[in-house]
Every structure is written in structure tokens, then in C-alpha cells.
């Protein structure tokens, strides 16, 4: 076998294509392509590894999906493509696929000895860029680099064509994916390549960026913003351009939004069976919560939805949350956003989360989602009030920190940090009944808190969460849907409308939904997932969106439960999480991520883990939160600090914050508004 020859020939073929520009390393490419291969069968794994090495790829093998996810999360840009088996004991290959797609947006190839049409179709619908039948031949592996190139090309193309063909792009994208779904799609690929080639002129940067195009990381916050925007427009009318405008995230392109929208739609479709899509769902939820939730002003749209969905958030709070999410600091406070159909239903109740998770991720992209900017984790009335004030700046910080209750507070703290230390919302609300309930009555959620409310979602006591609505004179009501026992009101974000709160990522509430997959809120898990705490009840994984703030992770309820106590002593949570993480603790560098990843991995059904994850996440997030909370830091939007903050770090960070001394962790995180780096679109 002469792999090198083959490679060489392939390379030349490609040179006429994507690498036309020549900037990239066409000569070497695809050598050195970083592949992650996941298969529980040791024999296949070894064989694949050998074959891939023969193709001159840089291979990492792994036999557990959870490990794979954590590897991916830890090295966001460490891999170019993932190959995964369909049938695995710990996690379904398709779930893994979804996670990766939403969190890291890497091309994923599925493989199986099963060649039945329905299974292959599943691969397609879940977004796999190819499906290989075992036994896999080396020839099939030689060409996998095409998927990497294609994806990059698409991304760049989107960038170039921002503004043009909004719909066209959208449609084009799916068709692209479909087109290339089979390994024997070279013909298609070529033709599409040709099409794309024509546009190469405008994509000069292709060459340089093709390989290293910064990815848009759809953090929880960002995703929430996205969801809020979509809801505001109406899912049917939501076009990327308008969504982009509504989101108003610097650095985000229409293409990013378009592709994300696509995914979102897929997600919704998948959920459709579960949730009643749209508002109907929300309504039902809302009613439950209505009483509790007051006006949720500009809550981060993201979670709001989820929250709303979970019923925890009263429709209006959701709206507000959404508004918050959307409006970000601008705060639509008081503007109850119509809860658009709950598309975001992200599974509050059910582990549908996938999307929710995804959403959450988006949320934060550009703005640091200060979920709880001021939202004291424990949502004590006073705290809330504090948050309120501080929330402002944090606005974005969705204090979703529910995650692990405890953590959330820390996170919140962080957020508040910038704003006002006092705010520290107890994001930890997540922990059972989030403290929020207690504070719920208090409008304390003052503006800042709204964001913080996030955590409240998690608050185990579903009932409690709601109390927050009131808070917020500014309307940022963080409606902490805490009620959901299971769902952690995903995002009860009482994120007070305060403009600052903008991201209260109600997503927290979504966390429940996310639960099953805690979509790893990419990293953000940021403690904002206070909801996570809330989730405790929900077995859902915490979607610790990047927003960090959102722990939408559907917390498997239990887990978070303990942790959620949103007390400002978030730090406590930290410990909590550790206990929870049944091993899932991961000191994920991305705080948020960590949380989620942990959560996610456990998702498989472990809500428990989620709690932990969240904790971890929170911990991580809290660290991140710091960075993010810095509202002015602005850049934080991406809440994904690349740093790996171990729990300890987080704890200390939180502690520091509590003490008011926490300086924005910004320095630690490299967030600058939009870490393009990890923004999986």
C-alpha cells in the first residue's frame, strides 16, 4: 500500500479546489490532519489508528464517547475531524455527533458495521458529514480530509456572502451537507467545489483561513440571544439577517447565524415529537409559573425559552428573559418578549436538550453573558437587589450559573464582580430550590439580578424559582423557573431585565432540557448555569453553555440539587460539585465546558452527574465568569475561557469574588468579545 502516493495524488487533486489560493499548506495537507477516532471495539480502533497513521494523519484514539467529548472540549481546536462508531455502550454515537456538532462544530464521520438505510439516514439527519461501513478500508480514510476542507470552505463562504441570500444560504447549506453525506460523493463534491470555486475570488482569505478559520463558539449566552431573536421574529420568519441584527453581536456574521439556524431547526424538528413546539409548550409552562414569575425583563432570551418551556418561566418572564437575552445590556427590561413558541423548548422537560444546549451556547458569543450579573446566587432578596445594581453591567452575564448552585453564585459573583460584587446572585440557585425561591419574593433581583437569575432555574424547587420574578424592578426578572423539579426551569432566569442582565440565560432552565445532553455548553457552562442547580431536579444535563452562565445542563436534577444553593458562597458549591461529580468532574478548562462536558457525558442518563458537571462547570465557569462578567471586558462574550480552571481554581475565584476582590478574570480568559476561536457555529 502506498499511502503516501495516494495522499499525494489526493493533494494534487485538491489543489485545484479549495486550496487554490495556495496560502494554506497545500503541500502537506492533508498530512497532519488531526483525527480523533472513537470506537468501543478495540480491534477496530487499533486498525483504524494504523490506517489513519498510514495516511499520515495525526491520530488520537479513544474508546469511550465521554472521554472523546472531554478531549474535544479540552482542546477546542485540537482536532480537525472526528470519526465515531455508531454503537457504543456509554453513549449513542449520534448523541455524540450532535454534541460535537453543536459545541465544536467539527466534521464528524460515523461508521458502523450496520449498513441499513435507516441507520445511515440517522447519520445524515444528525449532521454527520459522512457514513462509513465497516470494515473500513484505508481508501475511504484517505479522503476524509475533504470534509474538513468543505466545512471550512462553507464557513468562509458564508462570511463572504454575508447578507446575500439569506435563505439561499440556508438552503444551500443543508444541501451541501446532504450532498456530501456519502463517501462516494466525490462527484458532488467536485461540482459543488466548482461552484464554490467561482466564489473563490472573494474568498481570498480562504487559503489562509481555511485551515485555521476561527470558529464561532455558540456559547450558552450567545445561543440564548439567538433563540431570543428567533423567537422574537417567529421561527418561521426568522432569517439570519434579522436574527443577526437582533442579536447585535459584534463579530458574528450572518453566515454564522445561518448555519446555526439550520442546526437549530434540525434540533427543533427533532424535538417536535417531544415538545409541542412553540408556544403551546411555553404556555403550559408558563401558566405554571406565571404566578411566580414576574416580569422578566430582558432575560436572556435563550434560557427564557427553555425556562418558559419548562413551565417554570411564566411566559412573560420568558419574554423578558428573552428580551434580556436579546437585548443584552440594553435591557429590554420590562419588555416582556412574547414568548415565542417555545422552540426553545429545549427540552426542559425532556432531555431534548440538544438544542437547548446549542442555544445556550450561542448565547454568549459576543457578549459576555453575564448571566447573573448581579444575581446573587442565592437570590436572596437582598442579594438580588445587589445584583440588581450590579447586574447592570453584567447584563450579559447570565448568571445562569445555576450550575451547582453553589457555583453559580460564584459565578454570579463573578459577574457581579465587575458590576458590583454584591450582586452575586446565587446562581447556585440551581441547588434545589434555589435560593431563589426565598428571594423570589424579592424583587431584589434587581436588574442585575435578572441575569443572575439564571441560576434560579436550577433551583430545585420549582416553585421557588419563580419567586424571582418579582425582583426586578428593572424587570429583569429572573424568572427562575425553579419549579421544575425535573426541569430546572431551565432557565428560570429571573434574569431581571436589567439591561445588564441580558443574558440571564434562561437557558439555565433549559438546562434541563439539555440534560440529556448537556450539551456541554461549550464551556460556558459558566456557572451561570445556575440553573444547573435548578436542574438538579432535572435530570437534564446542564447545558452549560458557553455562556457559561448557563448551565442549562439538564442537570440531572439531583446533582445539582445539592449544589445549587445559590448562596453567595458559591464556593461552597464548588465543593459540592466535586462531590457530585461522580467522577465527572472535570476541570474543564472551559469552565462552562467542563461543566457540561461532565454533565453531558453523564447525560447518558445521569442527571446526577450533571449536577456535578455543573459544579465543575460552575467552577469553571465561575472562573470564567469572572472574565466575562466584566462587562466592559466586553470581549468576554465568549465565555469560554480557554483556561482550564479546575475546581479549585474556580472555587478560589469564586471566593475571591465573594470577597469582592476578584478581578475580572478576563486576563485569564481570552475572551474578546467573540472568541472566534471556539465559536462553533
Amino acid at each position: 500500500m502506498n499511502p503516501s502516493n495516494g495522499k499525494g495524488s489526493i493533494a494534487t487533486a485538491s489543489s485545484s479546489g479549495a486550496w487554490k489560493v495556495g496560502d494554506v499548506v497545500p503541500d502537506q495537507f492533508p498530512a497532519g490532519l488531526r483525527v480523533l477516532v472513537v470506537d468501543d471495539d478495540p480491534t477496530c480502533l487499533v486498525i483504524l489508528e494504523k490506517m489513519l497513521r498510514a495516511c499520515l494523519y495525526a491520530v488520537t484514539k479513544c474508546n469511550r464517547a465521554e472521554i472523546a467529548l472531554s478531549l474535544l472540549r479540552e482542546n477546542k481546536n485540537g482536532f480537525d475531524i472526528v470519526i465515531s462508531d455508531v454503537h457504543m455502550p456509554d453513549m449513542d454515537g449520534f448523541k455524540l455527533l450532535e454534541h460535537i456538532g453543536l459545541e465544536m462544530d467539527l466534521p464528524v464521520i460515523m461508521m458502523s458495521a450496520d449498513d441499513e438505510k435507516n441507520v445511515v439516514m440517522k447519520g445524515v439527519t444528525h449532521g454527520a458529514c459522512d457514513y462509513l461501513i465497516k470494515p473500513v478500508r484505508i481508501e475511504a480514510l484517505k479522503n476524509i480530509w475533504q470534509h474538513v476542507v468543505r466545512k471550512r470552505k462553507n464557513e468562509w463562504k458564508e462570511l463572504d456572502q454575508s447578507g446575500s441570500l439569506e435563505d439561499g444560504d440556508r438552503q444551500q447549506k443543508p444541501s451541501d451537507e446532504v450532498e456530501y453525506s456519502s463517501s462516494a460523493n466525490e462527484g458532488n463534491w467536485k461540482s459543488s467545489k466548482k461552484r464554490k470555486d467561482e466564489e473563490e475570488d472573494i474568498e481570498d482569505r480562504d487559503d489562509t483561513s481555511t485551515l485555521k478559520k476561527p470558529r464561532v463558539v455558540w456559547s450558552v449566552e450567545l445561543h440564548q440571544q439567538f433563540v431570543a431573536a428567533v423567537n422574537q421574529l417567529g421561527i418561521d420568519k426568522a432569517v439570519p439577517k434579522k436574527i443577526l441584527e437582533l442579536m447585535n453581536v459584534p463579530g458574528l456574521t450572518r453566515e454564522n447565524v445561518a448555519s446555526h439556524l439550520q442546526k437549530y431547526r434540525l434540533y427543533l424538528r427533532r424535538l417536535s415529537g417531544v415538545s409541542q413546539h412553540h408556544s403551546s409548550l411555553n404556555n403550559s409552562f408558563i401558566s405554571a409559573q406565571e404566578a411566580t414569575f414576574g416580569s422578566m425583563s430582558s432575560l436572556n432570551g435563550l434560557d427564557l425559552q427553555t425556562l418558559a418551556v419548562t413551565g417554570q418561566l411564566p411566559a412573560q418572564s420568558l419574554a423578558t428573559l428573552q428580551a434580556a437575552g436579546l437585548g443584552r445590556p440594553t435591557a429590554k427590561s420590562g419588555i416582556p418578549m412574547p414568548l415565542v413558541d417555545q422552540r426553545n423548548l429545549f427540552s426542559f422537560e425532556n432531555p431534548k436538550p440538544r438544542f437547548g444546549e446549542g442555544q445556550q451556547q450561542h448565547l454568549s458569543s459576543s457578549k459576555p453573558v453575564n448571566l447573573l450579573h448581579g444575581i446573587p446566587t442565592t437570590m436572596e432578596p437582598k442579594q438580588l437587589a445587589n445584583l440588581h445594581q450590579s447586574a447592570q453591567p453584567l447584563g450579559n452575564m447570565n448568571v445562569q450559573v445555576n450550575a451547582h448552585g453553589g457555583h453559580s453564585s460564584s459565578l454570579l459573583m463573578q459577574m457581579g464582580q465587575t458590576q458590583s460584587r454584591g450582586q452575586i446572585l446565587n446562581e447556585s440557585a440551581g441547588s434545589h430550590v434555589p435560593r431563589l425561591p426565598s428571594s423570589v419574593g424579592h424583587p431584589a433581583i434587581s436588574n442585575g439580578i435578572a441575569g443572575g437569575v439564571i441560576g434560579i432555574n436550577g433551583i430545585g424547587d420549582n416553585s421557588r424559582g419563580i419567586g424571582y420574578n418579582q425582583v426586578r424592578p428593572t424587570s429583569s426578572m429572573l424568572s427562575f423557573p425553579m419549579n421544575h423539579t425535573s426541569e430546572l426551569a431551565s432557565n428560570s432566569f429571573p434574569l431581571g431585565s436589567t439591561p445588564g442582565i441580558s443574558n440571564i440565560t434562561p437557558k439555565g432552565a433549559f438546562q434541563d432540557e439539555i440534560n440529556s445532553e448537556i450539551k456541554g455548553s461549550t464551556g460556558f457552562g459558566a456557572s451561570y448555569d445556575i440553573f444547573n442547580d435548578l436542574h438538579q431536579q432535572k435530570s437534564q444535563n446542564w447545558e452549560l453553555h458557553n455562556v457559561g452562565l448557563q448551565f442549562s445542563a439538564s442537570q440531572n436534577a439531583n446533582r445539582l440539587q445539592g449544589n445549587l444553593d445559590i448562596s453567595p458562597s458559591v464556593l461552597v458549591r464548588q465543593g459540592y460539585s466535586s462531590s457530585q461529580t461522580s467522577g465527572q468532574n472535570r476541570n474543564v478548562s472551559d469552565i462552562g465546558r467542563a461543566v457540561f462536558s461532565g454533565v453531558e457525558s453523564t447525560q447518558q442518563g445521569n442527571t446526577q452527574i450533571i449536577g456535578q458537571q455543573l459544579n465543575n462547570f460552575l467552577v469553571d465557569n465561575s472562573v470564567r465568569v469572572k472574565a466575562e462578567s466584566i462587562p466592559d471586558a466586553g470581549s468576554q462574550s465568549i465565555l469560554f475561557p480557554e483556561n482550564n480552571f479546575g475546581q479549585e481554581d474556580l472555587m478560589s475565584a469564586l471566593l475571591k469574588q465573594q470577597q469582592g476582590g476578584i478581578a475580572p478574570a478576563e486576563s485569564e480568559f481570552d475572551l474578546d468579545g467573540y472568541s472566534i476561536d471556539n465559536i462553533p457555529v
Partner: protein
Amino acid sequence: MELGQMQGRLAEYTRSLYMEGILDAQFLQLQQLQDESNPDFVVEVVSLFFEDSEKLLNDIARALDQQSVDFKRVDAHVHQLKGSSASVGAQRVKDACVAFRNCCEEQNVEGCLRCLQQVKQEHYLVKNKLETLFRLEQQIVAAGGSVPMAEMTF
């Protein structure tokens, strides 16, 4: 036996395995993957396969032995065995697995037991054959010769 003869025997033996369908093209791929940097690749992979498959076969037997058989579980095991046997090129084992899966679908314990027997037989057969093959190779290498790269001439 002198080197040339041994090599001839090896080639003949290998060809027969392919002809009988005991091994298929995938095995050839494995052989082609082997190189100086990894001279025992095939042996390693095959050993890994047997280790893993034996475990699987035991699991299957145990699962079929239960009061109430969990066919999904059995099917999952068989599926895995199918995948790994296909990956090493143990064609007959793979085919037996395919038949086995049909029995699982029918949820027929008797049928499954029969299929299991069949799979075990094929498994045992390929194991022996490969052991012989490797032994021949070792002899050649010990005698100072090199094992010719397998070629599918048919």
C-alpha cells in the same frame, strides 16, 4: 525445510485461506499496513481480535442462558463481533454473525443458540488457521527470510 520452500508453502496456504473464504480482502489490507516500523502489526491486531471476540462469545452465551433472554443485548454483542471480525477480515465469522442477527430479530432462542454454535465454529476455525499462518511466517523469519507481501492474485 529450506527457505524457498517455506515461503512457497506460506503463499500456498495463504491463498487457500482466501479461496475458502476464511479470510477476505480486509485481511490483505491489514497485511499491507504492516511495515518495518510495525512488523508485528497483523499478529497484534489478530490477537487483540481473538481476545475481544472470545469475551464477546462468552457474553453472548451467558445472555442466551438467561431465563428471559435479552435479545437486544445479544444483538448488540453480535453486532460488535460482526464489526470486529469484518475489520480483521474473518469473513466466515462475519457471515455467521449476520445470520445470527437475523435469529435475534426473530427472538428465537433455539435459533440463536444454533447460530452461536456456528459462529463459535467459524471463530475456532479461523483462529487455528491464522495460528498456523503466523507460525509459518515465524519460521521463515527465523530462517532468515522475509515474508512476502501478500497479493491477491485471484
